[in-house]
């Protein structure tokens, strides 16, 4: 460590003076730390979201393709009246819920094994096995499911060899459910693992000492402590499913919220006001979910 400060009578260096000034004025430290991040965030991300929210109330001139800043509720009226959009929203939210439940069921035992049973080397191996898919292309992985699920694909080939009948899963909502559950699984495993891994052994021991059997310990000690991790993971699976349009267009054949938004922005007419209006649906759903998640303490486990 430096002995500068110990040299009595010597004038401190500029660095020390600045450092001391910061130390004595905590608000200065906080502002310096927070300023750039919060500033960038607010001025770029939050401002962009704000403008998006506002543009939902505008309209698009079909002739010139320019956004017209007249305030109206037309976009919302169309969405409210046309039942197709209700159906699409319901379908998307239902799918997001189904995918979340599936991933929780798949991930929890896996994360439990990884966190509390596996030895250090196995744990490293499992970690690598879970993280590697995140590094390989999302598009390539979704595309390979086509090969598996199509009529002459891998699944039917194996089923045929086992003497089972052909499945026609390709391009159905089942296919989309399977693919989404597959793709988001690592995002559920990681927070659940983190939560389970943080449970101190002493808690389990204490529970045992108090006379609880294995299952009771699990139900009343492990599960509640792991719940924030589960909810944190579910934030990912839910929000990622709500907005994705690539997987449904590659392996499915129905429209989801993301498809409608994408088509209205990049695919069709560049009708940003309409897309923004529809985007309020996933925005509202996630806002509600986040409020509930925060109450459940999930933010600590993200």
């Amino acid at each position, binding site marked *: 460590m*430096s002995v500068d400060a110990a040299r009595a009578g010597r004038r401190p260096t500029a*660095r020390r003076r*600045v450092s001391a000034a910061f130390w004595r004025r905590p608000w200065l430290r906080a502002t310096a730390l927070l300023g750039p991040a919060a500033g960038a965030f607010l001025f770029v991300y939050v401002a962009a979201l704000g403008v*998006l929210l506002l543009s939902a109330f505008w309209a698009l001139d079909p002739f010139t393709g320019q956004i017209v800043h007249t305030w109206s509720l037309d976009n919302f009226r169309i969405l409210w009246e046309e039942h197709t959009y209700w159906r699409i929203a319901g379908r998307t939210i239902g799918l997001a819920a189904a995918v979340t439940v599936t991933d929780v069921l798949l991930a929890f035992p896996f994360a439990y094994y990884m966190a509390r049973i596996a030895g250090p080397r196995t744990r490293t191996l499992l970690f690598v096995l879970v993280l590697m898919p995140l590094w390989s292309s999302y598009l390539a992985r979704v595309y390979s499911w*086509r090969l598996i699920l199509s009529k002459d694909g891998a699944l039917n080939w194996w089923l045929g060899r086992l003497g089972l009948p052909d499945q026609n899963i390709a391009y159905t909502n089942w296919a989309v459910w399977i693919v989404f559950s597959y793709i988001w699984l690592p995002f559920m495993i990681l927070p659940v693992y983190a939560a389970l891994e943080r449970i101190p052994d002493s808690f389990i021991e204490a529970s045992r000492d108090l006379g609880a059997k294995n299952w009771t310990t699990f139900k009343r000690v492990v599960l509640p402590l792991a719940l924030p991790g589960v909810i944190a993971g579910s934030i990912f699976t839910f*929000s990622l499913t709500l907005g994705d349009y690539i997987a449904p267009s*590659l392996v499915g054949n129905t429209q989801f919220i993301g498809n409608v938004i994408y088509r209205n922005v990049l695919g069709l007419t560049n009708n940003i006001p309409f897309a923004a209006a529809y985007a309020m649906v*996933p925005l509202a759903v*996630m806002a509600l979910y986040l409020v509930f998640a925060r109450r459940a303490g999930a933010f600590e486990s993200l």
Partner: protein
Amino acid sequence: MESRATRAALGVWTVLVVLFLWVPLAIILLYAFNPSNIQSWPIQGFTLRWFRVAWHDQEARDALLLSAKAALAATGIALVLGTMAAAAVSRFKFFGREALSFLFILPLALPGVITGIALSSFFSFWGMTFSLWTIVIGHATFCVVIVYNNVIARLRRTSTSLVEASMDLGADGWQTFRFVTFPVLSTALISGALLAFALSFDEVIVTLFTAGAQNTLPIWILGKIRLGQQLPEVNAVVFFVIVLTVIPVVVSQRLTQESGLLRRR
């Protein structure tokens, strides 16, 4: 604590999940050797042709490079801004702290398509040309959050007395950071940076809205998927990326495991 039967069952489940995660990946790797232009099952033979094609494909190389550049820039920004924000939020109480920490979760919690159209309209509004930097800004939004989450989780588990002690012993701010704070944070930073890099490298939804005529690797892959021909070239490129990333992932795992801070007490 768990019974033998439970352990065995969980072990089997783990293997099944690993298989579930890796079978599609194995197919990708396998089909890099597919001689046919169109992908179909079963594979009709083996060839190394596509690796050669991918190696000589200038577009593929440019896309790979651009993705790496964007990911590096976004991760760099994320490391700086994310750490600073995490430090501020965890160490200081201020009005609006709850609101701010809620806001910081948004880029990850909101669907990418919303971030995409919000940023895309925002950039057009300010007349910015879509370029590498608009891509980086788009990626940085969620990368910052990832680093922020990791760092704040770590900071919550370390006591502030360490910093105070360091200052008492005569270190200035920079020395404290270098010798006390940074080592404590290092593994959180590494794992955060790695995850942020991975997500940025493979990001497609936000990028589609914030990129101009440039191709990042995922956009290049999407273009090839559109054509429907020569798809095995995509597999070859993904094969290459997977092989390349095994090492950093393993290394980072080893580093974070040994930290000792993650051990249960």
